[in-house]
């Protein structure tokens, strides 16, 4: 896998992503600065990392979505390149139109930083083939604007086309399942949506952080399978 990592002013998860990708691929990804007008053709996976690009001014991801490198990203997406947007990266992908809907302020109006549980909705995509069917996985979220919103038409299309990638769910091992069910959705996302695919299924955006769940020392290794899936698919 030939991975590239887009870096904007205010990206702050690019280092974790670089470590995760280096471990998964055996070699570091190519860093691409936001002012670059092109992304090399031999790149077959592009990661848009989390952070607070341009200070989240105007709307999270709004400025980064208009950067020169993002135009190159959109062109790569049209050619079928695998693209993953994590957290602010997901917000950038919705802002630039690669993914439908928008991510608005959490219903609790607070920054949420904790582990969440996710149901892997399907395991036949290039991003999820290394997961067990209907697996429930754990990884952290850390965001203020992760509340996924889409109008009813978009939402039913996403559902009908099988384009929901992950849904927030309760901890299957929780002693207190009522509390766990109440806390499952950390931000008020419609239909408990944590991640979605584009129509061609080569672009995935999600709010939780798989790159922060790749080593046992961080409490979960469930995120690593996402990168394993891509490597299996691309090799």
């Amino acid at each position, binding site marked *: 896998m030939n991975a590239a990592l887009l870096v904007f002013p205010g990206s702050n998860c690019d280092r974790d992503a670089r470590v995760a990708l280096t471990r998964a691929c055996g070699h570091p990804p190519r860093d691409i600065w936001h002012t670059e007008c092109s992304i090399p053709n031999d790149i077959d996976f592009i990661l848009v990392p989390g952070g607070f690009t341009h200070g989240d001014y*105007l709307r999270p991801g709004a400025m980064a979505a208009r950067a020169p490198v993002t135009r190159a990203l959109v062109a790569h997406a049209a050619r079928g390149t695998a693209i993953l947007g994590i957290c602010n990266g997901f917000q950038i992908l919705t802002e630039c139109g690669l993914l439908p*809907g*928008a991510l*608005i302020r959490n219903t*609790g109006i607070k920054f949420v930083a904790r582990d969440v549980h996710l149901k892997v909705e399907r395991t036949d995509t290039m991003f999820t083939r290394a997961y067990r069917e209907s697996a429930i996985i754990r990884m952290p979220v850390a965001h203020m604007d992760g509340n996924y*919103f889409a*109008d009813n038409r978009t939402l039913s299309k996403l559902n009908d086309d099988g384009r929901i990638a992950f849904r927030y769910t309760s901890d299957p091992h929780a002693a207190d399942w009522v509390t766990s069910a109440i806390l499952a959705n950390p931000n*008020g996302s419609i239909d408990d949506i944590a991640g979605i695919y584009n129509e061609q299924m080569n672009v995935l955006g999600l709010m939780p952080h798989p790159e922060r769940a790749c080593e046992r020392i961080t409490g979960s290794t469930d995120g690593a399978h996402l990168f394993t899936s891509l490597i299996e698919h691309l090799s």
Partner: protein
Amino acid sequence: MKAVIQVRLKNGVLDPQGKAIESALENLGFSGLENVRQGKMIEVDIDQVDPKDVRQTAEAMAKSLLANPVIETYNIEICEE
């Protein structure tokens, strides 16, 4: 000439900040409040003389960056001073 672009959340899009403002106002004793919504206002001086041109420029700016049509609407006022 100055253009003022007001950006507001569409009806039906949840506005948790508006809700927080509403309850803060109620805590201050204001009663009978409903539907507090928070939006944004962007002012810009544009170096053009014809109000029609100014409006067209402001419109293009709102469409390409200032408002996200998925969740927001906007309106534009031109101030001739």
